[in-house]
Structure formats: structure tokens, C-alpha cells
């Protein structure tokens, strides 16, 4: 509860870190900050850990795990010596070209590999080259959307701490998404559920709801096609196809027949059964 005291500790930690580095940042050096957290305590590492880059060192604030260290431009890794049985963790970071927040770097008594797949939320296709971060370990997805992060901190005996680690995935053209693990390691590998990213480039509002839809082919004949939905032999809906060549119906569960006509051009009737109204069925048609 004593936040003033915590704040003083934090400031003191920053000052000490600066002293350890031999001075403040210069034109060719930058400050990297972050926190070192323990998957056992689900909080700051205790005792304090030592951060090392080359000959420069800093220690974490015991109260909140924070650290700050001045590093040369282009630095790509931070070595975290937990000064405990957890041992040493090495975290790769993007080349430092400005003051950088390295985020939360997690340490623990064990190390595992975390793997999973990043997918497009709209069609489940894999998202390649997505940047994935978990526990302070960074990686990228391959062409199949799969990522593999090695040497992630883990604790079999304090699994909830591991489950509380929040990772992130981001890719160009998508909104970023967070994830966490929900299952323990099997043979030192933790597989997370698929991570779904939502495209950020769709500027067109969605159409209204539907559960039966389809495309009319060929596209040259599609516009103006009358699509009629019937149930038990009675026509109940009609849709006039526009320039997008698609038709849509939103109906309760049931069995329906769809007919298609554009002047003299027709397509064979199609039957469709919706077992439940949340089922979405596509029925394309080709006019002759």
C-alpha cells in the first residue's frame, strides 16, 4: 500500500542502474528499460536480478522488478542473471536505435519451448511473418503461421504464474492480439491455442446478417438476377442481385428451395436445409 515508498525504491533503482552503467546515455548509447518477473511468484524477481550488456550491468528493483540500463546503439540482447537457482536467461531484442522499453522479461526455474499458430480471424488462413512475443522471448511466424519460441521461463510447480504471462502477436495489416497459455508443457513444449488476428484494412462496412447466400455465375449475367426462396412450395422471399453478384437471405431453421432467373437465363433449383438458424450455407448458381 505504501506507494510513495515503492516510488522511491523505483527512483533509487533507476539511479543505481545509471551508476552501474557508468553514466547517462550519449549520442551512441540508449536506455533500455523493462521489468524482470518470476513465473513462480507471478511478480517481481526476488532477489534482484542482474542485467548485463557487455561490461555494463544494472540490477532490478526488488519492489517491482523494473530495470534501466544504458546500452550501445545496435545492442540486440540482454543477459539476465537471476542470481538464484533460476540461472541465466538471455533475451534477444530488436537492434536498439532509440530509448527502448523491452517489456516484461520472465524468468523461472525451468525453460520450455512455446509454439502455436497465428491465423487470420476471418478465414483461418495462416498469417506469415507475424511478430510474436511471449515471456520476453521474440519470434516470427513462418509461411504456415507457426512460431516457435525457445527458452521461455516456466515452472511446473507454479503453473498459474506461467499461465498469467500475456504474449502478443502483431502483423502488418492486422490488429494486434494478446494470448496466454492454458495448458502445461508436454515434454518441455507448450502449445498455445491458435492466435487469431483481425484484418485492419477492411474499410467497407459489413453487409447485413444472412444465413443463406451465394454467388451468381457468370458475373456478366449476375446483376438483376431474381433469386427466390421457397418453403413447402410457397415463395417466401425474393432477392434482386446487384453488381456484386451475390444474394443473401436470413431465415429461421428449415428446409428451403432456391430458384434463379434473369430473363431467359435460369439455373437449376437448389435445396438447402438449415438445421439451426446460426448455420450459414452458401449455394452458388450458374445461369445458363
Amino acid at each position, binding site marked *: *500500500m*505504501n*506507494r510513495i*515508498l515503492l516510488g522511491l525504491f523505483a527512483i533509487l533503482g533507476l539511479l543505481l542502474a545509471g551508476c552501474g552503467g557508468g553514466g547517462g546515455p550519449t549520442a551512441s548509447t540508449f536506455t533500455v528499460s523493462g521489468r524482470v518477473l518470476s513465473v513462480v511468484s507471478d511478480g517481481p524477481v526476488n532477489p534482484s536480478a542482474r542485467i548485463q550488456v557487455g561490461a555494463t550491468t544494472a540490477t532490478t528493483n526488488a519492489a*517491482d522488478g523494473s530495470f534501466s540500463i544504458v546500452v550501445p546503439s545496435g545492442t540486440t540482447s540482454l543477459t539476465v542473471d537471476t542470481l538464484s537457482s533460476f540461472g541465466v536467461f538471455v533475451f534477444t531484442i530488436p537492434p536498439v536505435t532509440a530509448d527502448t522499453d523491452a517489456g516484461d522479461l520472465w524468468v523461472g526455474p525451468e525453460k520450455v519451448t512455446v509454439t502455436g499458430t497465428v491465423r487470420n*480471424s*476471418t478465414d483461418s488462413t495462416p498469417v506469415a511473418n507475424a511478430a510474436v512475443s511471449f515471456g520476453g522471448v521474440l519470434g516470427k511466424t513462418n509461411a504456415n503461421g507457426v512460431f516457435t519460441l525457445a527458452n521461455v521461463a516456466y515452472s*511446473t*510447480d*507454479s*503453473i*498459474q504464474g506461467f*499461465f*498469467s*504471462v*500475456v504474449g502478443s502477436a502483431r502483423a502488418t495489416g492486422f*490488429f*494486434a492480439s*494478446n494470448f*496466454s497459455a*492454458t*495448458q*502445461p508443457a508436454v515434454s518441455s513444449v507448450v502449445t498455445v491455442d491458435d492466435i*487469431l488476428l*483481425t*484484418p*485492419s484494412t*477492411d*474499410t*467497407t*462496412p*459489413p*453487409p*447485413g*446478417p*444472412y*444465413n443463406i447466400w451465394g454467388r451468381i455465375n457468370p458475373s456478366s449475367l449476375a*446483376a*438483376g438476377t431474381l433469386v*427466390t426462396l421457397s418453403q413447402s412450395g410457397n*415463395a*417466401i*422471399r*425474393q*432477392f*434482386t*442481385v*446487384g*453488381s*456484386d453478384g451475390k*444474394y*443473401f*437471405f*436470413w*431465415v*429461421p431453421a428449415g428446409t428451403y428451395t432456391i430458384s434463379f432467373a434473369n430473363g431467359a437465363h435460369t439455373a437449376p433449383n437448389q435445396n438447402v436445409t438449415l438445421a*439451426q*438458424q*446460426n448455420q*450459414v450455407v452458401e449455394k452458388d448458381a450458374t445461369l445458363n
Partner: protein
Amino acid sequence: MTALRTFLVSISLIGIAVAQTNTIKIELGSSRSADGKALADAASRKLATNLSALTKTARQQLARGGRYHPDIPLSLPSRVILTQNGVPLSTPKIRGFSRDASDITLQFDSTGAGAFSQTYRDFLQAIFDNAKTTMNTVFGPPALGGVVHVLNYDAQIGDRDAVGGGLYLPNNGSGVREIRFPVYSSQEAAGVNFIHTILLAYQGTTPYGFDAYEEGIVRAATMKIVRTAPAVPTLDQDLVERVLENSYDVAPQYDWFNQRALGGPKFIASNLVNQPLPVGGSLGGLYLLRFQMSGTAWEKLLIEYPTFISQFNAAFYAQPALANDAAGLMGIGQQVLTNLRPGDPTVEGLGFIEWAKRQCILETHNTAGLKLLVQPIPITSNLSGTDFGVFLFQTAFFQTKANGDELLLNGTSYPIFWDSDFNRLSPSTQDEKMDIAGAYGSVAPNFTNQNGGVPYRVAVDIPVLDQVQRVYVPAGSISTATSGTESYIYGTVIGAPNVPSTSLIVRIIANGGTFADIPVNTGAFGVKTTLIDPLANRPLTVQVIQVGPSNQQILLTRQVNKGVGPIALDLRVNGEDAFNPGTLPAGVSLIGFPVDPFSSYVPGMLGLSDAATLVARYNSSRAAYDLYPDSEPFKVGLGYFVRVPAATPFNVPGRSTTGVPTSVTLRPGWNLITTPLNETVQTTSILTLRSFNLPVTFAESLGTDLGLDFFAFIRSANDPFSGVPENGTFTPATAFAPGQGYLVRCLAPEGLTLLFQPATPGIRGKKAAVVLPPTTPATTHWRLKFQVQGESRTTEAYVMQSTVATRGFDRKLDSGSPPTIGGFQVSSIASENLYRDARPVSGNETYTLKVDGLRIGKTYSVILNPEIGNATRMTLTNVTDRKSIPGKAGTRMTFVAKATTQMFTLNVQGVR
């Protein structure tokens, strides 16, 4: 314990099904009874192990709030039913007792693996002997009398810190009714659990079909029994209260926790019970709070009607077919009130059905969608320094599937703390962000002393994806670093009119007399010592009174059945209203909710069957609509497509926030929302909040955090066969009207929260919608509205030229056109269909405009409306018949549609 950690535990056994949360069914098939006993043994052992794992995280969460007593385990007594071919084994008549005997006799083993020590056996027998009279009074006599065998199953429990409670088997597979009970180190834990378990035996063969009834009634009765002086004479009452606080009673914060995410037929979703649990423990969703809230809800009835449960049970025993009939059970509830107090058959001032609607835990329908619950817990101990209003806010975030499964979700929330004037507070950086993992997240801000020790109301919005849950807490009213003991009655007031020269008080009336007049400071209040015996349970009348120089006006009167201990009150003046358009028109509509409905059962509100219900809400994460039953229940501030076959009476009562600035949260992408206030809100009255930034205006967010335009839905002409509108057109909107849904696009990757501000804060008021001109960037050089009219419908698009536009899509200038879905729509064709097409300033520019949704043979008009700047020359061409006319302000070209889609071009030269 070491061995326990080496494998995953699972509650699922072959042949086991879960009915109510506290009922495990075991199918014996053609097994002989001896095999059945072995299966029951295995199931009991497994259940005990899983309860240990299940409750581990819940215990940790309670501990974070300072509410867990590690010496007292959680209490989750359960019923184990053996079935053969799906039919429960008959509950036996035993040893000379008739089936109808109204008494239960306990039988203990004196030797063997199932025997307790003599001391423990005597203790349990004494607990029952002492409590029996009170049990019969509070709960009613047993539905089924006879001998119940009590067995020690301590050896089957793995984690000593997580004993789940006793198990009751109506038939243990050998024709014996049986209680399996652990050995507790705490007598109080043993006593409470044992009474609870015996009450399961009291219920006979037909438990209630909903956890809210089954669990709630037994828990409320257990609380009442162990708090009744003669019932448990050997137990320490303070320690008994600790047992109840762990897993029975949340009366002090009931008002705060009464949130819709609690609802549902089961407290622990089947998938969370049946799927393998990690040995570290499962979050298990909201189950513990659900247990506590259900007990507390029924306790409210007992406070006003001490024999309510006994009469309710008796009526139910006579009509067991109502076990799964929520309406039937509520009918019983009303009948019991009428029997007990014919002149005023109400509880907390309401008839049973109306009262039950307002208790979210008693919503027994399964509803799908995202669920968000926020528990504010005041921290009242170990305060120091500047601690003034320290609260732990625990969040549960999950998704319920149509089949009742619950998915524990991950996410990030940027909590928003508002002071009483709705300025954003920033308590500390560590509280700016809440990571949610496995459904759980928390922050613990301290709301500091801002005004010389005067308490103040804080509104806390926790937004996640497109969900937001608000709670109100009083900073400085409960316990501060310098105030010493905790207040007994505290809370917040919202919605009171802001009248000069007046003040507010909260008046507490009990036993016909005024016990306290508590001043309300900037929406917050708290009092310590005014009441005699302040911690006792009792009915209270609570009034919010506006005190003027010469008069007092009662703004709100609420009946509150206060439980044991302090009480938090969430008092809302004009806090209830209705979304009442009168009727819902036949066909497709896009509606939005200005109130938060009491009910979550959508078909009931639409007057349709489940199978005929057509409701949809857009889910930008899937880029698709969630269709009922996958769609979430109606919620305030959210928009939904609905389709009803005929005009339907529509009047949905609920919690209202009119008069109070209220938040709606957007997830990245398109969102269906509305104003959460029962009044039209202009965009100039909307603030936007992104992550932990300060609020900015709606206009400032356009093109950066918000799409340039948002859209309303215009119903199309009637379908020729159904005779009602089946689709429609999206059209840009300029204000949010209550009851209407809108499509709004969020560009901020972490989502965005909109704060809708009422015209007159604190006072109910409605303003007519005012149509504002579209956004006009200062750099716009020329702009023209291209309008098409026909069949009493109008559609429009904007073409423009700007000094900062590019030929690509400019987020601050261009705006995507709504889809046609069979409706009437004009779009400018560029890289995509545009509603607003901005291009660089050019000497010669041609725009191509497409009109969709035309009806062949019908007459339409194109109208040119220049709004900014001038063009030396414009030429409008109908591409279909190649007819061209010179364009100027007001130019109108009439045409007869030859196709459902027709194209036009507009050539513009010499813009200045």
C-alpha cells in the same frame, strides 16, 4: 501432493455426467450394485481431487482481496447420483423407516475404513441433534426420511487446503443413502459443511434443475441455520462467519456484484468441469462468486420471511415436475409470498417475479456471447500513507457458447477511472493496464484524497474488446489510512439532479424509525456508528433525499434486505427505464438498447420461440455476424439486427443510465452500437478514450481512432413475397438516436471507448436529433453531394478535392461505402466503393458513381449539390443511355431504371 502434481487430473470419468453443478451422475450400466459402489468410490475420489484443483485459483483470488481464511476450506458439498440406463437408482426405504417418515437418522460406522474417531462422530451427531429443529423450521422437514449412513472419506481427499465438503449419495449402489464426509481441523468448517450436506439429504430425490435455486436455497438455509443461536451451540460464531464469508455470503457487496455475467443455468460450465484440469488449479470461471451470490440472494428472502424456504420447498416437493421450469418456480415464489403476507406479498418492495428479474444470479437461461464481470473489493486493512480509497478490482472475462460451455478468455483492458464530474483519474501507472489471462485480471488503485478529506464517487469502466462493465465505488467513505474502522453503510448515488443550493442525504430507516441521515459528498457516502447493532441483518428502507433551504424531496426509495456485516449500496436515481418503441416493425430492423435489460432471454423479449428467433450482432474479430443463439443477449449501448415476422409489441425494462455519462467500447474494426442513454446524443457530446490517454473529442478521433463516417440502417421496400422489409441500406449518420443501431468503425488496435454525455447531466432529458453537416476538413477545396432519389428513398455520396488528398485511400478524408445487401445505394468508384471520395485538387477530374438497388422500370433522379468551392465546368453523364447534361448547383437528371445497377460519371473541371 507430489504424486498429485505428476499427472493431469480430470473430473471426467466414463459414464459420469454433470447435471446441476453440485450433482454428479454415474451411469452403472448393467453393473451389479457392488460394482456401483466401487464406481461411486472412484467418482468421489476423483471429485475430491478435482475440487482441490478447481478451487486453488479461487482461493488465491480470495486471498488477494484479503477475504480468504486459509484455515477454513471452501465449502462445495455435492450430490452423487448413481443411474442405471439413465434412471437414478431408487432411493431406498431403510431399516424399518417408512419412506414418508419426516425424520432423518444418522448411522455411523464404528470400525473400518469408513469410521470416524469417536470424538468426531460424537461431534457430528451433536451438530445434527442441536440443529435439527432449526433445520426443519428454516428448510422444512425432510422430503424423505430414514437412515442416512455417514462415512469417513478423508483418505480420498488429496489437498488438505481444499476440502470440497461432504458428498450425499441417495443410493450408494448398495441400497444405502450415504453421506461421505471429511475430517476438518476446524470445527466450524465441519459444522457448516455437515449441515449443508444433510440438507442435500433433506431434499429427497428431486433437486431443483437450476443451480441458482438448488445451490442458492441450500446455502441460504445453511447460513440461516448456523446463525440461529440454538442451532450450533458448540461453534465459535466469529469463526462460523469466516466459513460463510469464504464460500456462502457476499451480502456486503451484493449490490456491486449483481451483474449480468452471473446468469446461466449452471454455475460451473460443463466443459470446465469435464475437461482436464492442470494440477495448479483451474480458474473455473465465475463459479465461486455464483455460489456466494445465489446464497445471498435467497438470504434476502429469509431476512424478510424467515420461513420462506421451508414453504417454497414444500410447494416444490409437491410439484417436482417444475424442477426445470423457471416460470413455474417463480410462480411458487410469488404464491409463498402471498401465503406469508397476503396484504403485501413483496420482497424488497417488489413482487417475487419482478424482484427475481433484478437478481442477475437468478437468470437461469443460457445466453451466449462475451461476458464481463467486475468485482470491486474495498481494501480496509493495512492502510497507510496516502491510502484514501483503495480497491481491488477483479475482472472475469469469458465467452459462453450456445451449448453452455464457457471459454476463459485472455485480453487487455485499460481501466478508466472517472471522478464524480467524469474527469479521468490516473491513480498510478500500474493501474493503467490490466492483463487478463485465463479469464482473470485485476488492478488495485488508490483513489487519493483530492479535496481535504471529502469522499467522492468514482465510476470505474473496465473495457475489454467490445464489452464494458461499470461499477461505482465511494473513495474515502469506507476506510482510509487515517479513519480507523470500516464504515458499516457506504456507497454511491448517481442520477440525482444537480440543483443549486441543495444537498443530498441518504436516509436509512429500519424498524419504522430513522437510523441515520448520511450526507452525500460528490456522489459518495459512508457511516460508521449510527446504527445500534450495525452489523446485524435486517430489512432497511433507503432513501435518497434532496435537501433544500426549505424543503426535502425524496428522489429514490429502495427496500434493501441487508445481510450480516457492512453493506455497500449502489443507489441510482431514475435508475430504471424501458426501451419502449411500442412495437417492433415486421421484417428486418437494426435496433440499439438505451437500457440494460433485466432479462437476458432474447426470444422471450421478441415473443418468439427459440427456433424462430433471428437476432444478429456483427463480430469484427470474425468479420461475420454472430447469429442467435450464438449472439449475445441484448445489452445497453449495443446494436443488433432483429427480424420479426409480424409487428411485435416491444417494451423491454431494464437498468437505465440516462442522465449519467456512460461508456460504450469498440473493438478494432466495425462495431454495432448505439447511445446508451435514452436521448439522442450528438457526436459533439461524445468523448473518446484510447488506452490510458486523456479523453479527446469525437471529431479529433476521426481518421485516427475512428472511421470517418458511421452508418444507420434504412429498411428497404417490402419483399414481394414476405410483404415486409427483408434488407436495407446503410446511410451515413450524424447523431446517435436511442433505439437505433449504428455501424461504427474503430481504427485503434487496442480498441476505443466512447463516453456518451447526456444533454443535462443528472437530469433526464431528451433532445431532438439535429442533423449536422458532414465533417469538413479545413483542407477541403471543393465538395459536392451526389444524391439519388426515388420511391421515397434517398441515397447520397460525396465527391471532393483536397489539398492533402492522395489518389489512394486517405483515412482522414475517404470513407468506405456501406454494402448494398439489396438496398438502395450510391457509391463513388475508386480503389473501392466510397461514400466519401477525396482526390487531389485537379484541373480535370472524372468521378464514376454507381447506383445499386434500383428497381427496373421505376423513375429516379440524380441531384447535384455543390457544398464547398466552385467548379468552372461540370458534366453529368448517364452511362447507360449516354445522355449528358451540364451540371450546376441543383442540377437534376431524371431516369427510368433499366437495370438494378446503373453507372453515372461526373466530370469536374476548373475547381476553385
